[in-house]
């Protein structure tokens, strides 16, 4: 299959002047190209290992517009397969999650074990004879998979750099988001089932603006900020976020321009871990748990600066379509040019008492998702911005991404990042769009990875 290199896209994305054509967000052809140029190449978040704790456990997930199965095989190794039978394409798994010995296609009974091997076909011996080699017809598996401190990522492209190379300077921050509150690596698990719902907008509306749109909150979330949905209730005027103790830190517009990653991330002005401030009025014992966890983490981080972002320090996007912070993973799947499937995975400490887990779950439902107070505000914007940009007249008007133009400077403490010392900027969005353009124009990973490797 030929990969299209479309240099005409440069006429639609003018990063130097901060102007982007609305066509980028509404075009059917661009959407189709994105599936090949971006979603067949990039490292994509698939899930968390805690979603498949036992051999045979599986969950349905997505990579771009395509559905995949994440399964733990009988030897406890995790695989990610395209959810389509090799014979005639029928889905071999039609449940969101479960446990299985095999995946049987209901069409002609082609059957695959949890390692993806074809183990049988209906009337196989009569239809195919003894010379049919089943080993040539396994489920289609991703080219590379990485279990990064519990988070599962995959790519279809064997030429993609390693996942840690793909993350570049943001790797420590990703690792930090999956640490427990006590600083233990891979200390989190994910609530099941996850939230998922569809919104009538293009995936780039949320994916390229989330964790990068500082000026939207005051108006978009005006009512929810007053609704006191945080766990501290109406204490101290109410808020939707957890209370934080004073500590030298400042949230920055922080981007890794060569990689397309970035967000609103805290840079700490002192070593160690911020004190914990009592917050969970409605969950007895929760503050005790988090106090103890914080003290344990403080011992681990004595004399060290916390990595930017995470654990109350802001959140960030990993190109192309996932936003991560210390307690949630926001995933934006392209389904069609005007349809995005939003997924929410919420993390909680594996070793937290059940009452703490339940309280965290209730806060997540109150805050996030289709019934949560905050996201319904965001959805309203995206859901109307898309149709209002589709018309012939509307498409003659560019989107300006002008906030903070020319203000980002290389960060001395964190090489590879450029920063602005506030978040009322659109540097994140410009960087993501620039990386989008690079992916859309690239012939292969040879054109994309910033470090040239010898072939």
């Amino acid at each position: 299959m030929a990969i299209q290199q479309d240099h005409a896209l440069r006429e639609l994305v003018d990063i130097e002047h901060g102007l982007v054509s609305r066509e980028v967000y509404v075009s059917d052809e661009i959407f189709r190209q994105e599936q090949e140029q971006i979603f067949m190449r990039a490292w994509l978040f698939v899930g968390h290992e805690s979603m498949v704790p036992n051999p045979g456990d599986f969950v349905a997930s997505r990579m771009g517009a395509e559905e995949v199965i994440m399964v733990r095989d009988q030897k406890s190794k995790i695989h990610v397969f395209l959810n389509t039978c090799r014979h005639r394409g029928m889905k071999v798994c039609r449940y969101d999650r479960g446990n299985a010995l095999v995946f049987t296609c209901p069409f002609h009974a082609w059957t695959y074990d949890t390692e993806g091997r074809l183990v049988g076909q209906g009337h196989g011996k009569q239809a195919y004879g003894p010379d049919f080699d089943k080993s040539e017809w396994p489920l289609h598996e991703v080219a590379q998979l990485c279990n990064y401190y519990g988070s599962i990522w995959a790519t279809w492209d064997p030429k993609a750099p390693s996942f840690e190379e793909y993350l570049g300077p943001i790797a420590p921050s990703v690792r930090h988001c999956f640490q427990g509150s006590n600083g233990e690596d891979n200390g989190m698990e994910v609530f099941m089932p996850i939230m998922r719902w569809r919104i009538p907008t293009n995936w780039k509306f949320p994916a390229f603006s989330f964790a990068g749109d500082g000026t939207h909150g005051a108006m978009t979330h005006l009512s929810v900020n007053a609704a006191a949905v945080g766990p501290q209730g109406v204490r101290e005027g109410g808020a939707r976020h957890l209370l934080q103790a004073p500590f030298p830190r400042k949230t920055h517009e922080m981007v890794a321009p060569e990689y397309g990653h970035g967000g609103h991330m805290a840079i700490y002005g002192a070593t160690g871990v911020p004190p914990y401030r009592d917050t969970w009025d409605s969950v007895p014992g929760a503050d005790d748990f988090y106090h103890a966890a914080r003290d344990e983490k403080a011992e681990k981080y004595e004399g060290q600066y916390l990595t930017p972002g995470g654990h109350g320090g802001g959140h960030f996007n990993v190109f192309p379509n996932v936003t991560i912070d210390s307690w949630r993973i926001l995933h934006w799947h392209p389904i069609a040019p005007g349809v995005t499937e939003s997924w929410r995975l919420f993390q909680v400490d594996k070793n937290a008492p059940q009452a703490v887990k339940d309280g965290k779950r209730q806060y997540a439902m109150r805050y996030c998702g289709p019934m949560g107070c905050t996201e319904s505000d965001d959805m309203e914007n995206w859901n109307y911005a898309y149709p209002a940009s589709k018309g012939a007249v509307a498409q003659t008007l560019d989107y300006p991404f002008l906030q903070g133009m020319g203000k980002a400077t290389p960060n001395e403490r964190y090489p590879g990042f450029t920063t602005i010392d506030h978040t009322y900027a659109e540097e994140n969005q410009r960087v993501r769009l620039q990386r989008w353009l690079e992916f859309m124009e690239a012939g292969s990973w040879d054109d994309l990875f910033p470090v040239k490797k010898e072939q």
Partner: protein
Amino acid sequence: MAQGQGNSRFRSPTGGPLLREVPAGTKLLLKDKSIVEIIGNPGDGGWVQVRYLETEAEDAAVGDEEWVFYTDVQDFAQEI
């Protein structure tokens, strides 16, 4: 071996074997006269994972573990 109607969970209305809920350890008679023991059942009614106990088939041996499709099963090789 079992014949006739038997338990309806394991027999179709026409008397044929139904595999969906048959537990591991159950012995089956295959159409090629092999006797196999179920070692895994995914519960889809189509396939069972078996170990060969007795066979004269050219393409199987005692101890082999295979997946068997329900159309290749003659009947149960024990009361069920």
